[in-house]
């Protein structure tokens, strides 16, 4: 069952790296009491809506919903609040670690 998530991107969309593991905040869009719950995850994302197992919707900094559907693969859930400042406009590229 494909789950649906969304994320906020503050940089230009063209600058978002695909297929690179990043740390970012996503929100769970599953209907019910926990809809919009936030989560820190390590993930891969793609503009190809079918590339990864879950659907990702993309919003810009003031909440504007973009019209293209992306896809996402969560590689790890991150417990707690990451102490290293993460880059909210596009996620932290973990390859730099």
């Amino acid at each position, binding site marked *: 069952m494909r789950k649906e998530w969304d994320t*906020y991107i*503050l940089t230009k969309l063209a600058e978002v790296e695909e297929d690179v593991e990043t740390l970012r*905040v996503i*929100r769970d869009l599953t209907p*019910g*009491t*926990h*809809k*919009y*719950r*936030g*989560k820190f995850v390590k993930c891969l994302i793609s503009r190809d809506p079918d590339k990864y197992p879950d659907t990702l919707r993309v*919003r810009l*900094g*003031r*909440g*504007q*919903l973009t019209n293209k559907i992306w896809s996402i693969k969560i590689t790890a859930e991150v417990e707690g*609040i990451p*102490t290293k*400042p993460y880059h*909210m406009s596009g996620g932290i590229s973990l390859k730099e670690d």
Partner: protein
Amino acid sequence: MPFKYYKDNREFIKALEKSGDLVTIEQEVDWDMELGAIVRRACEKNSPAPYFKKIKDYPGWEAFGAPMSTWRRLNIAMGLDPETPINELQDEYIRRITAPTIKPVEVSRENAPCKENLLTGDDVDLFKLVAPMVHGGDGGRYLCTWHMVVGASLKAPDNVNWGMYRQMVFDEKTMCGPVLPFSDMGKMFYEEYAPIDKPMPFATVIGMDPLSGIAACAPAPYSEAEYTGQLMGEPVELVKCETNNLLVPAHAEVIIEGEIIPHVGIEEAPFGEYTGYRTSPRAARTVYKVTCITYRHNPILTVSNMGIPTDEGQLLRSFSLALEMRKLLESQQIPISGVYMLPESTHHLVAVGVRNAYPGIAHQIGHLVFGSKLAPWFHMVMVVDDKTDIYNLNELMHDFSTKLHPSKGIHIYKSHVGTPLYPFADPADRKYGKGDKVLFDCLFPLDWPLAETPIKVGFSNPDIYPLEIQEKVLSSWKEYGFKD
């Protein structure tokens, strides 16, 4: 001697129902935007406050929207006639808050309805509370839009602050939201707790009585609990939290306790803000870790929906900021006739009526109010003479359009304190909270010869119509055939 007031939100709801200022919605509404949309439309139409009895996914929970977004509801909260004019409401308010302060009283938990239900440890789950998605596109579910956050100074624990700092649910035990460094709680957190890496205890209070809400919204120069006592005319009843030493209003609907965590941030916003825009971007903001939740049976969430005017944030903030300015100007013996901050301006524009007693008086007013601690919240001051009705938008617009010299009457104050929420600010100013200010001097210069000074042409100006003519017209008005 206590004034007429409502000890909790439930009594206030009943009063609004009785006066026709409440609509009870029995049909189920969705917390995911539908509830918010109803509150928003009610604000834009100045409709009665919506009271939601049945909310999807949350049996047993109710919600009360736009609790104080009209002057009528503010009058009712103050125990006054709903039609009390704004200047009389101001006078009554000033009368109460200039009386001696009244310390709160602590009551036992048995006498505190907010303790009827308790969630601690693993049971703490913010998603058990009906946090609405207030506006489409918001960065999350805003549980706290009409509420107050209680915090205390580390160095002086008796220095307790109540303030409204929006809070978004992140996960089961985490909320986040902006705490600006110049705010009262911001000063405590960033200057006292954060430098020594110490979490700051907090308690979020949802659904407090209306006068506590007014006090939390006001730029009170001392304890808001004592300020509330002044508004009530007797002590406000507080009860101790379960997991820290803070005291909270005993008759509130929901209390969320926890700690504010230094040196971390979680993405928060965007959010529909009091300016009527989503201005501030999603960014890392202050983190609240929740340790305990208490709430009344059948709790009632209070919901403010900020956006284009008028909501209670705009109305109450305008009201209380104007009163603080009035106190400031009167303390300096400026011969003002009144101060009115227009809620429609999202408390950005304040009109000051003054007797044009000496040259430069408008500048003096500008310097005083822009130099005060109130300054970050507004950027426009309009000074008019004492014959202008500052509560009448038509008269203000007339003065603005006719008495304001387009170059000599407009004065800019550069590099002042602003907020990141100014929609007009450029990104750099927004980032650093900077903002210019402007003074609109709508007074005719005193050095103009009397014979060359224009005379306002209006019915009530005795230079145009002598008093006997005015009185004759007024007493015969209906006889002429007018119905108004």
